[in-house]
């Protein structure tokens, strides 16, 4: 049975554009990004470093520096965050939408205890007293499966292991039961075994709390593990989107294909590893047309001539590519 609250988008981003404008440079970091997420859904933004993944998340959190120009819409439960005054934005941050970071060691304040940092958030948003907030923090640590949580609350970040710290960071992000969780490469800095634990934890918590997750990573394996849908980002633009299965099994964009085939796994033993030649383009001077064209083995003249056709499949999957469009029509 369809419930009205389930069908409503938890997060909808429309035409999000971020430019960093300084005296001599104008960097187009994100160029018209759009997606929507239902409660309980996970979207992974997959891309190389410098493709604009993190900037997209930070733009949604209002964490970008003053010289950035952000346009478009970020609709959180039906309200546009970007058009809100700063104070109203701050009220939503950490409450309706929160974020976990790549390196929990540097994202946690080193001179306050974990318990203090979690309680502080709860007190800020819910105005409860310290004792209540501390109790809630304890429950949160237990919820993220931190053993002997009581003791851990009084720990400082440097007294914990990397995995524990990331769990604490997740507890902090979940302190006020957000509708949307933004995860900025939360497993990149961790050991592989710990990575899996954190991914599983995120999935369990998502089931318990029903939040939508935007997960950013450059790791194809991690993306396959966590996501319902994947958006592949290149030079600040989604070049292909689709369900995890569509992207992993049936990628249409040459960049996505390149990313998948340059992933290292055991089956490749003894074979020459494939790479994508060249480097990502300079975002301060993007070429016209498809930004991937200079590195693309299928590139043709049309690729660098402005409007790149967008191919959509019945499922809603999308690829922004001349070659994919030609294959579609033939």
């Amino acid at each position: 049975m369809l419930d009205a609250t389930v069908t409503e988008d938890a997060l909808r981003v429309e035409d999000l554009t971020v430019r960093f404008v300084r005296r001599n440079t104008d960097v187009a970091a994100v160029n018209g990004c759009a997606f929507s997420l239902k409660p309980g859904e996970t979207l992974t933004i997959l891309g190389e470093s410098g493709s604009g993944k993190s900037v997209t998340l930070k733009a949604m959190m209002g964490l970008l520096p003053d010289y950035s120009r952000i346009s478009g819409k970020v609709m959180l439960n039906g309200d546009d965050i970007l058009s809100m005054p700063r104070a109203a934005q701050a009220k939503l941050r950490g409450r309706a939408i929160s974020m976990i970071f790549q390196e929990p060691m540097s994202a946690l304040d080193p001179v306050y205890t974990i318990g203090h940092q979690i309680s502080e958030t709860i007190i800020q948003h819910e105005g409860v007293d310290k004792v209540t907030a501390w109790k809630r923090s304890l429950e949160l640590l237990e919820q993220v499966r931190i053993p002997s949580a009581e003791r851990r609350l009084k720990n400082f970040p440097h007294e914990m292991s990397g995995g524990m710290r990331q769990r604490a960071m997740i507890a902090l992000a979940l302190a006020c039961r957000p509708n949307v969780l933004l995860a900025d490469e939360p497993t990149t800095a961790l050991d592989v075994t710990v990575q899996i634990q954190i991914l599983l934890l995120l999935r369990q918590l998502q089931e318990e709390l029903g939040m939508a997750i935007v997960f950013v990573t450059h790791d194809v394996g991690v993306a396959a593990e966590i996501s319902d849908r994947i958006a592949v980002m290149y030079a600040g633009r989604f070049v292909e989107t689709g369900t995890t299965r569509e992207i992993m099994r049936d990628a249409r964009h040459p960049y996505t294909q390149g990313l998948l085939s340059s992933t290292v796994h055991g089956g490749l033993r003894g074979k020459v590893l494939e790479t994508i030649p060249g480097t990502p383009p300079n975002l301060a001077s993007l070429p016209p047309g498809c930004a991937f064209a200079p590195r693309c083995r299928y590139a043709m003249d049309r690729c660098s001539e402005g409007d790149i056709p967008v191919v959509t499949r019945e499922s809603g999957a999308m690829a922004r590519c001349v070659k994919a469009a030609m294959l579609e029509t033939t």
Partner: protein
Amino acid sequence: MLVFAIRRLLQAIPILLGVSLVVFGLVHIVPGNPIDMLMPPEASPEVIAQMKAAFGFDKPLYVQYFLWLFRAMQGDFGLSVFNATPVMGQLMVALSNTFILAILGASLGFALGITFGMTAAMFHGKWPDKLFSALATCGVSLPHYWCAIVLVLAFSVLNDFLPAQGMGDDSLPLYQRLEHLVLPVITLSLIPMGVIGRLVRATVLEILGQDFVGALGAKGLPRWPVIRHVCKNAAPPVLAIMGLQFGYLLGGSILVETVFNWPGSGNLLNLAIYRRDIPVLQATILVLASFFVMLNLMVDIAQAAIDPRIRR
């Protein structure tokens, strides 16, 4: 935390012993005999020997050292060679005079420095940053005896607003004695202001660039709580330098105390050197050095209380 404090306290003991040895040694390396300075040239050798024995200068150095240290630990620094009054009394007067200046100068300098540094960092690259950075640079680079002279010229000579010299008599009413403090305190606050201002600016900027500050914004904390986090992180390095700066001020600035004719420890030290007054010299340096060690010990403990990573 308590263990850390006790351990640091115990570590201070060998440092203080080392200091005492250096103080004693340095003074005795200086050529010339203090008794020769005191006695008229025609004094007979017997009288000189008598004087030496009276002050204990006839014994071997190491015996002198232990005798001196033993007495010093009981607060007895002997008699001044120059005027045969107890060293302790002179020292206490000079130190308390300097202490007044130091504590006021440091408070003013630290308060201004922290305000300037924080403001400059918050408005990084904008005009308040440029203004306060320029002020801080002036503070550290202008010679403070020159500033003292300019202040005296402006407020005492050209306009008769404030007294230029001395501490004022005990018989003067309180506000008049306070007036004597104004110019020396301002002069002494300049260097701490500049040093602390620049340090606070640099430290705060470095912390503002760290990820956790963004993360604090991401959990929805408004401006002031975030600033509180930044301050607590910035405190340890700033405290360390504040301890050093206050230590320097306690030593008394010979130049500033000379310009303002202030009977403080810098003045006393200066006189003791000219007069070859070894007991006074030793006592002053030892007490100042001990203050310095204790001050840094306190800073260490305060730092550890603020930043758990320092407690090891």
